[in-house]
C-alpha cells in the first residue's frame, strides 16, 4: 500500500479515505462538542492518529511517524496533564454568554467553509506527480527530508531549535513561582491566626469510619449531621464531597441491632460496642 502511494492512488486508498475520513470528521466534531475537556482531548487524539495514517498514505512516512510520536504521544499527553491539573471532571456550561456569538460563529464558519471548498474546486488541481522520484532521489523519504533540512532549510532548522529552547524556558518561567519573601514560621502562622480571629485549633478530621475511610466523607456532628469543615477545601469547591451521614447512621443502627440479636447481649454490651466504635 505504501509503495503504491508514492506513485498513484488506488481503490484501497479510496476505501481507506472514506472510512477513516468520516471517522476523522466525527472525531473533530466531537472535539468541539464534548462538554468535558478530557473527552475532547481523547477525540482529538483519535483524529490525529487518523491523520497520521493519511500522512503515511500520502507517502510522508517520516511525518506520519512523527505525528504519532510527537503529536499524539507528547503533545496530547501534555494536554491531558493540564486537563488533570485544571480539573478532569469539570464540564463546561453549554450556555452561551456572548449575545449572538453562536449565530455569528455558525454563519462565519459556514461561509468560510463554503468559500474554501469553492476555492479548492475552482483551482485547477489536475497535476499529479507522486512522490516516487522525490523519495528515491536520496534513497528514501527520511533521507530526502534530511537532505533538505540540513541543506536548504538549515537556517530555519537552527532557528526552530532556538525557538524550542526559548519555549521551554518560557514555560518554566511562566509556571515557576519565585518565593519573594521569607517563609513564615509555625509560630508566625499561629500568631496570625490568633490576630485574625480565625479557627484556632486544627480543623476537625474528616469522617473516617470502618466502611468509609476516605477524606471525601465529612465527619458527623453530635446530632448526626455532616460538617463541611472536615473536608479539604479543594474537594469542597469541586463539589466532590460524599455525604454518607444518613446511610452511615442507618448502617450503624442495623449493625447494632443485628449484633444484639445474634449475640443476645443486653443493653450494656450494646452500649460498650457503641463506645468501641467511637
Amino acid at each position, binding site marked *: 500500500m505504501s509503495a503504491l502511494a508514492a506513485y498513484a*492512488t488506488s481503490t484501497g486508498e*479510496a476505501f481507506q*479515505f472514506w472510512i477513516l475520513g468520516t471517522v476523522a*470528521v466525527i472525531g*473533530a466534531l466531537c*472535539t*468541539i462538542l464534548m462538554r468535558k*475537556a478530557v473527552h*475532547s*482531548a481523547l477525540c*482529538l487524539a483519535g*483524529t490525529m492518529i487518523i*491523520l497520521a495514517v*493519511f*500522512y503515511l498514505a*500520502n*507517502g*510522508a512516512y*517520516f*511525518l506520519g511517524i*512523527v505525528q504519532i510520536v*510527537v*503529536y499524539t504521544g507528547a*503533545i496530547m499527553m*501534555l*494536554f491531558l496533564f*493540564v486537563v488533570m491539573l*485544571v480539573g478532569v471532571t469539570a464540564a*463546561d456550561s453549554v450556555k*452561551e*454568554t456572548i449575545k449572538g*456569538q453562536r449565530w455569528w*460563529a*455558525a454563519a462565519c*464558519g459556514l461561509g*468560510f*467553509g463554503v468559500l*474554501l*471548498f469553492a476555492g*479548492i474546486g475552482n483551482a485547477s*488541481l489536475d*497535476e*499529479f*506527480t507522486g*512522490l516516487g*522520484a522525490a523519495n528515491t532521489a536520496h534513497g528514501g523519504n527520511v533521507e530526502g*527530508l534530511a537532505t*533538505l533540512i540540513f541543506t536548504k532549510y538549515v537556517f*530555519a532548522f537552527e532557528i*526552530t531549535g532556538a*525557538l*524550542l529552547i526559548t*519555549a*521551554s524556558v*518560557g*514555560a*518554566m518561567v*511562566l*509556571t515557576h*513561582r519565585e518565593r519573594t519573601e521569607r517563609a513564615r514560621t509555625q509560630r508566625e502562622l499561629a500568631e496570625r491566626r490568633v490576630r485574625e480571629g480565625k479557627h484556632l485549633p486544627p480543623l476537625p478530621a474528616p469522617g473516617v469510619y470502618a466502611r468509609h475511610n476516605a477524606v471525601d466523607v465529612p465527619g458527623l456532628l453530635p446530632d448526626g449531621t455532616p460538617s463541611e469543615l472536615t473536608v479539604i477545601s479543594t474537594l469542597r469547591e469541586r463539589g466532590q464531597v460524599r455525604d454518607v451521614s444518613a446511610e452511615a447512621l442507618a448502617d450503624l443502627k442495623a449493625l447494632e441491632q443485628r449484633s444484639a440479636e445474634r449475640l443476645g447481649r443486653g443493653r450494656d454490651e450494646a452500649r460498650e460496642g457503641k463506645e468501641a466504635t467511637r
Partner: protein
Amino acid sequence: MNPVNYLYLAALLFTIGAVGVLIRRNAIVVFMCVELMLNACNLAFVTFSRMHGNLDGQIIAFFTMVVAAAEVVVGLAIIVSVFRSRHSASVDDASLMKL
C-alpha cells in the same frame, strides 16, 4: 481517487477547528481546536507535496509541528498560570482589555 479529496478533508477539519475556537470557552479546548486547525494545514501540505512531487511541503509540515509544539508548551504554561491566579480556564473571564 483524486487526492484533491484530502484537501477537502483538510478544509473541513480546518473549518471545524475554527468554529470550535469561536464557540468554546475553555481555554484548553480552544487550544485543542487550534491544534486541529494546524493539523488540517499539515494534511494539506502533505497532500500538495504528493501532488507536486516535491518534499518541500513535508518540510513545512515538519516545521509546523515543531512550532506547534513550542506554542503548546508556552500556551499551556500560560493557561496554568492564569488558572492559578484566577481559578478559571475560561477565555471569557480574561476580558479586561475592553473600555
